[in-house]
């Protein structure tokens, strides 16, 4: 019976050892607070974007009432997320997914794939595993990679670079490439390096405080394995505002390499690796949680600028005449005749 005296102590230990997690119900007010708290504890760019999240709460919380509909609540919460001006931040319900579109909507499109196919490729190009490639008339190689979600393998790159090997230079067109897998950033970039190269650095939040971050961890790329086809001639990477996320990182990595010029318009950013979470009502939320920095330690969340003197837009009037002024500019940089 003496053992029974220890039972309360045992239960106290058990209760103390079950670590608490704050739980919310699915009412509009609780849903709003839950979303605000998730972002408060996990979002990584408050300081860089100058967002006072407490102030945002004070403006939006009064708009929430327990008798509002799901769609009304969704609209209020989506607008609150828009305050972060982040293309990686979305709220998802069964009836809608919110996007902050102004990161690209306020900028020129600067890309028309039909224009390129019709006037530069004559609809005669090779497509393989997400990459399209051809030789332009001035003996400049052209590779179009539209999404880093499209798997591209070493064999695909070997085939493309072998085919383009006689060319005097290479254009890699990642305009309107909105990202995908970081794996393919390395797969492609390491065809253009000869030594172990610092590509970028990554860090993560270490706690819910807004300034709790780990030290940046440097990430190095090694050249492609021996026997793979490498490229050592001049390269121009073409980008626009729609070049985002993994596309943005690709441009920042390539920009740091010798012999590579970045031309076009400032990319769309998206350098925060996104995390997912969810709300009790079943809605999902995605947000930037893990910042990436370029090889010089600069944050590229606001985009990567073209190499100095290489900013160029697509001229709409020239486009009507069948010319892509961005490709013409790139061809000129590579010593070719832009308008043969």
């Amino acid at each position: 019976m003496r053992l029974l005296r220890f039972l309360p102590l045992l239960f106290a230990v058990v209760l103390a050892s079950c670590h608490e997690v704050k739980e919310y119900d699915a009412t509009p007010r609780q849903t709003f607070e839950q979303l605000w708290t998730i972002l408060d504890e996990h979002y990584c760019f408050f300081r860089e974007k100058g967002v006072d999240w407490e102030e945002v709460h004070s403006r939006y919380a009064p708009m929430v009432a327990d008798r509002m509909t799901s769609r009304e609540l969704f609209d209020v919460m989506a607008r609150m997320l828009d305050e972060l001006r982040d293309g990686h931040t979305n709220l998802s319900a069964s009836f809608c997914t919110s996007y902050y579109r102004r990161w690209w909507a306020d900028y020129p499109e600067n890309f028309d794939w039909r224009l390129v196919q019709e006037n530069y490729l004559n609809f005669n190009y090779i497509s393989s595993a997400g990459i399209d490639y051809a030789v332009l008339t001035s003996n400049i190689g052209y590779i179009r990679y539209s999404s880093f979600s499209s798997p591209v393998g070493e064999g695909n790159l070997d085939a493309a670079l072998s085919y383009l090997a006689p060319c005097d230079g290479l254009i890699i067109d990642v305009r309107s490439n909105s990202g995908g897998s970081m794996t393919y950033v390395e797969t492609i970039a390491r065809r253009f390096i000869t030594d172990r190269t610092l590509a970028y650095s990554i860090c993560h939040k270490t706690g819910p405080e807004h300034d709790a971050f780990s030290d940046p961890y440097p990430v190095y790329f090694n050249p492609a394995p021996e026997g793979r086809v490498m490229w050592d001639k001049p390269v121009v990477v073409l980008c626009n505002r729609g070049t985002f996320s993994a596309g943005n990182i690709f441009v920042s990595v390539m920009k740091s390499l010798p012999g590579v010029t970045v031309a076009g318009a400032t990319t769309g950013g998206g350098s925060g690796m996104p995390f997912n979470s969810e709300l009790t009502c079943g809605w999902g939320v995605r947000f930037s949680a893990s910042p990436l920095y370029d090889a010089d330690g600069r944050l590229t969340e606001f985009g990567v600028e073209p190499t100095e003197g290489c900013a160029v837009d697509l001229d709409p009037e020239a486009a009507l005449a069948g010319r892509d002024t961005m490709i013409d500019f790139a061809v000129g940089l590579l010593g070719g005749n832009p308008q043969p």
Partner: protein
Amino acid sequence: MLRKLLITLCLSAALCCVAAGVERPVNSSWGLALGSAHTIDTYLTPLRYSGWGAELTYRRAQAMKFNPERWSQNVDFGLAFDSMENPARNASMYYAGFDASYAMLWRTSLPWGVTAGIGPHLRGDIGVIYLARNGNNPASVKASVTAGARGYLQRRFTLGRMPVTLRWQSELPVTGAFFSPQYDELYYEIYLGNHSGLAHAAWWGNFFRWDNQVTADLHFSPNALRVGFCQTLLSTKVNNITSRQWGFAFILGVTNDWLTVTPGRAPSAENRKIIFAY
């Protein structure tokens, strides 16, 4: 302290290996636990997921060579799978894991025919929680190596003409080491080579596991049908990540008592007498 415990366990295991050729009573069992499963893992989601869980177990208890009347060694293996849903029931979470443990139990007799056993145990767990709706953070790996105590109370009686063994067993890790990513650290970053801050010393403040089971073995000759109930709890908090997995399950299994014998040598009458129900 931990070093002494490990040395003792290693020496004991070595003794067991030396004694492998000698007959000793063995109780082995296969069991299936089926019941409820619940998980909160704030690395993946702040929500509580609930559903069903199943675990296939193999347990082997054997009298030890150096003092078979008092000591037994226990080796357990488990293969677990949980399937759960969030409160809105629009997302699924799965857990798959494997555990193995070794324990040495000292047995004594208490009043009213109760037998009690207690001793140290080592346990290793590895598993993964997978949340299908997440993109860059879809999984949370669970891995731990712990040392702690295991104890049991057991009483034999007859139900009609059938012998029954009623047993309560409890297991409580005290210390060890476990894995956890950092707060918002992607597994991609770990894959890239950043391995700092992943291994953690376990103590009750950051790692608390408590497993209990109550079983009744209904004996038919050397075999027995095992029915029972078990409860599991694992709660961790490290790197500002809280994770809790718990569940309740019914157990159904079969057990078998037998002797290990040395070829060409008959089992001794003394060892036949050792009734060492695990």
